[in-house]
């Protein structure tokens, strides 16, 4: 179903950047790294559309741009509707002989706000209509552009400016919405999760998302040092730990069939390698309050939810995990 695209690190390094340097992202920005990697997977004529958010703002300050591709931003909640319009235009203009391109790939980019929350209606509609586009969610788990407010993608216990940890509340009270599973429920051809630490896996999944005929959804983990109160130098390490703790497992669902991607499959086969969530959480100021006696129960709850979701995922992937050794 997918092309056998092989590439080396050198190939990727030598491929000109389509998301160019000079943008205004913060040091250690996960999403900016993710965008750069995504654009390495571009295979031909491509149009990119971007929801309002950090990546739009840091890349398009008039009269400057970081985009070496045709790029469109219109609003916050409608990246998928932009993609619908672009896809429809390309199809009919090609049919009428008014553009010369045989095919144009369409990539829609949105953060967690523009996907989980305000953007979910347009996304669901565009996927239901079967438009041929890849929707990439770069998930930094809060509304970072407006100053770290909680979203449907913010995990339990995270302190944000609208779910602050206080004397009686332990940060966000609700769980992270399982957005990628919601997209699988649309019976769309391709859904996957990715993390920039596993850059080869990420680039391959972007390419696959472009290759499928119809809608594809890629959920990419994207640390935000500013919002997570984490070390700017540790964004990629956090991207690895999120996978190793199974807080952000890597998988693909091709035509609804779930399968674990290698980094997570390794953990399924060797459960002793699965790390406790506290290793990931303790590196981030947004979870600092969970390491006090007052809120340690929430820490336990996060571990419980993570394990429960991991087991559900293993079931969906048809993988039974060997009994874990005591951790």
């Amino acid at each position, binding site marked *: 179903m997918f092309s056998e695209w092989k590439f080396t690190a050198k190939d990727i390094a030598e491929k000109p950047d389509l998301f160019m340097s000079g943008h205004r992202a913060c040091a250690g920005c996960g999403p900016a790294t993710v965008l750069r990697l995504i654009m390495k997977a571009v295979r031909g004529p491509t149009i990119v559309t971007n929801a309002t958010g950090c990546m739009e703002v840091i890349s398009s300050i008039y009269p400057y741009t970081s985009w070496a*591709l045709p790029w469109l931003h219109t609003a916050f909640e*409608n990246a998928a509707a932009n993609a*619908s319009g672009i896809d429809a*235009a390309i199809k009919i203009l090609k049919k009428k002989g008014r553009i010369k391109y045989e095919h144009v790939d369409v990539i829609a980019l949105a953060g967690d706000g523009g996907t989980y929350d305000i953007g979910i209606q347009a996304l669901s509609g*565009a996927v239901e209509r079967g438009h041929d586009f890849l929707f990439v969610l770069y998930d930094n788990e809060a509304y970072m552009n407006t100053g770290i407010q909680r979203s449907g993608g913010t995990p339990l216990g995270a302190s944000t400016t609208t779910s602050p940890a206080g004397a009686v509340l332990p940060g966000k009270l609700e769980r992270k919405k399982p957005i990628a599973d919601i997209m699988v429920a649309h019976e769309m051809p391709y859904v996957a999760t990715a993390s920039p630490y596993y850059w080869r896996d990420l680039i391959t999944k972007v390419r696959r998302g472009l290759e499928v005929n119809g809608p594809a959804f890629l959920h990419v983990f994207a640390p935000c040092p500013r919002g997570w109160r984490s070390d700017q130098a540790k964004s990629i390490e956090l991207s690895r730990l999120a996978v190793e703790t199974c807080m952000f497992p890597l998988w693909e669902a091709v035509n609804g069939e779930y399968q674990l991607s290698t980094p997570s499959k390794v953990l399924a086969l060797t459960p002793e390698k699965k790390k406790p969530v506290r290793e990931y959480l303790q590196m981030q100021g947004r979870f600092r309050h969970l390491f006090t006696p007052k809120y340690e129960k929430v820490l336990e709850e996060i571990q419980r939810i993570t394990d429960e979701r991991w087991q559900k995922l293993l079931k969906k992937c048809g993988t039974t995990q060997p009994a874990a050794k005591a951790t």
Partner: protein
Amino acid sequence: MKSVVKQEVLALNGDEAVAYAAKQSDVDVVAAYPITPQTIMVERFSEYVANGEVETQFICTESEHSALTACLAASVTGARAFTASASAGLALMHEMLFVTSGCRAPVVMAIANRALSAPLNIHGDHSDTMAQRDSGWIQIYVENAQEAYDSVIQAFRITENPEVMLPAIVGLDGFTLSHTLENVRVLPDDAVKKFVGTRQFTTVLNHEGKPVPFRLDPENPTTMGPIALPNYYFEFKRQQEEAMKNALKVISEVNDEYASISGRKYGDGLIDPYHIEDAEIAIVCLGSTAGTVKSVVDELRAEGVKAGLLRLRTFRPFPVKGIVKTLENVKAVAVMDRSMSFGANGGPVFQEVRHALYDSSHSPYIVNYIYGLGGRDTNMTQIRGIYNELQQTLKKGRVENLVNYVGLRE
């Protein structure tokens, strides 16, 4: 005026006339969401698609917000895009109306004018489009189904003109026009196709200083819909105002050119006066009400009363010069508003007509009549009553009530 092409007469309601015009205008993308009283437009167009009568990508979106977004995105990708809505649907598009005009996307949208909630009401008035009067869209209000057909065709030429590049709304009164069958003379397909032509693209400089077509084109990348900070934003907005000014001229030119083919002309395209030259008293209004007013003017004229009508066809851009010129000899003017601007001391049409006359050397008595909200009927007797009150104003030499309500229980 004579038509140079043979025209067929079809029995169409306003919505069908709009759909027929869109069908003939070589539209590439239609994205829409159904809402009363616009639904027939979408339904007819869906039939054209189902029967292979159009080469159009039709997107049945999950909301009006996405409908306009998809049209905007299709438009900047190089497609000719059309949508239609009404009332709450247009209100849901509100955000995207500004984005579409700001992106200078020549999208055409028909609106079957309808009241806004609450209370819920599906009938005709102008609250929906008047609430969007500052959104940067051209607004044309039509008098009948024939004009709805003609105006949609003209709108593509107006919006896509390089001096304009602004989106346009063609408004037709909900039910009164949208659902009422009329004889509509339609041009042959090839005549419309030739009139609208194919989209041409202006050349802009991209970020590298390279001249590129103003569209999303993989070979000539441009960044569209960027963020502009206080150092640039203001200039973008000033350019939109300039485009609106240019639209005044273009709307008139397109009106003339269309007349040379169809034999149909709507005033100068901006205003459509009726017996105004020697009128002492006049009504200013928009839309289908003008038809009723004309009948009353005919009656009054037969009785020797110097009554006239000034129908504003274009509300955006607002034809200040034409209004001032046309009303220069009128002694008392009644401006009819089919929407309210709460707390503003009069409806939007009244405010603007009165404002236009402020710098005129001539200063007629001017009063406001708010009428027909939520589809309430306005009949000839009531219109006659307005003219009577204008006569009373002239006799008394003063305005009794600045803002009046027609056919309202109080």
